[in-house]
């Protein structure tokens, strides 16, 4: 099995664990930001709508890597605080993809037929009941494909944390390369395969969620 360079796998998998954890944490946080910002942008209150719009446009208008550097290098200087690379990475990834996700939330909620809101009002539901029981369950189904794509983008985005020296799988690969330049090609093939496997797993998870959300519907 010399051609496969299996000896490279254990160190790579160590970094891969960090990558997966970072991805999972960032996805959860991004989902929260996306929901909050998406709902705030649809609010009738200006003091909710405007800050949310500013957040979304700023994070969609600049690069993820610039945001990561800003949060890791500039923000601690501004606020005089300490930020670990992991915290900075989760913040940057979740704020960035949360901004993109908020557009998915917004378009999905607007796509729920108006009659649904009217029916909920007719049934004397409170605004929070309306959102929780009527609008969101229907919008959620429409959000899933968009979220699925963003998850893959987020997973790919985690590789940038190597540049703030967080020991993810890309970082491990670069370290391995400095020890053994001759197996550079094998290292990168394994690295790409690991990312591809993670992307396939995420796609599968979203498919499952889609099937669950579609249960009992035509």
């Amino acid at each position, binding site marked *: 099995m010399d051609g496969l360079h299996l000896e490279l796998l254990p160190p790579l998998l160590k970094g891969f664990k960090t990558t997966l954890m970072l991805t999972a944490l960032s996805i959860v946080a991004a989902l929260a930001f996306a929901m909050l910002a998406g709902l705030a942008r649809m609010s009738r209150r200006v003091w909710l709508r405007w800050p949310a719009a500013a957040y979304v446009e700023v994070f969609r208008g600049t690069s993820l890597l610039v945001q990561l*550097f800003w949060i890791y290098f500039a923000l601690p200087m501004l606020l005089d605080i300490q930020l670990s690379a992991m915290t900075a990475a989760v913040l940057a990834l979740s704020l960035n993809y949360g901004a993109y996700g908020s557009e998915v939330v917004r378009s999905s909620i607007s796509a729920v037929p108006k009659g649904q809101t009217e029916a909920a009002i007719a049934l004397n539901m409170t605004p929070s009941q309306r959102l929780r029981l009527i609008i969101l369950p229907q919008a959620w189904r429409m959000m899933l494909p968009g979220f699925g794509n963003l998850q893959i983008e987020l997973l790919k985005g985690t590789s940038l944390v190597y540049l703030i020296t967080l020991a993810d799988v890309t970082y491990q690969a670069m370290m391995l390369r400095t020890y053994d330049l001759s197996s550079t090609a094998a290292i990168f093939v394994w690295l790409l395969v690991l*990312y591809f496997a993670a992307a396939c797993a995420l796609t599968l998870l979203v498919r499952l969620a889609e099937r669950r959300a579609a249960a009992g519907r035509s």
Partner: protein
Amino acid sequence: MWKWEYVEKILPKLLEAIPVAAGAALAGFALAVLLGLPIALARRSRNRWLSAPVAAAAEFVRSTPLLVQLFVLVFVLPQSFGIRLSPFWAGVLGLGIHYSTYLSEVYRSGIEAVPKGQWEAAIALNFGKWRTWSRIVLPQSVPPTLPVMGNYLITMFKETPTLSAITVVELLMTAKIAGSASFRYVEAFTLVGLIFLLLSYPSALLVRMLEKRLQRREGRIGSR
């Protein structure tokens, strides 16, 4: 905390780096536009031996990070294949290949939106394959996708900081060099963010305008 004199000192350097970033984005976009069409056509092919491998390769490129692909171009290509590229051109090639998989999807959506009657009309007129594609299908499928393509150009421009990892001296690299010389990162990185925002936000608005105009034109053609 925030020193305006320092801003004055580094702003010209940062502005000088814009053409590098914009150039890499534009050249990469041109490559992606060129590569995207054959990928889309190959994936539509009825020949499984062509469509399946191309689809698999495109999915693989799409699902793996651009950063790693750039490393492959600068570390693996010279070592395993003897191909040496300058960092800038490796960056252009990486951006172009990565985003060609996205643009192939854009082409696909455009092609699928062409009504079936158009294909049938081409057959009825005895058009060959080449004439059907060049005179009927592509002229109708590409223009509606222009706003989406414009958005990808903006996305690619925002992706150029990744090229700093392979030592292309674009905006972020310039800021990093300036910042590390004086240990003042706040101004440098904030300015880079502002430059990206000031360039990409108006472009995004422009694309949105183009989209509205195309929709209006479509409405007119539809009602005719």
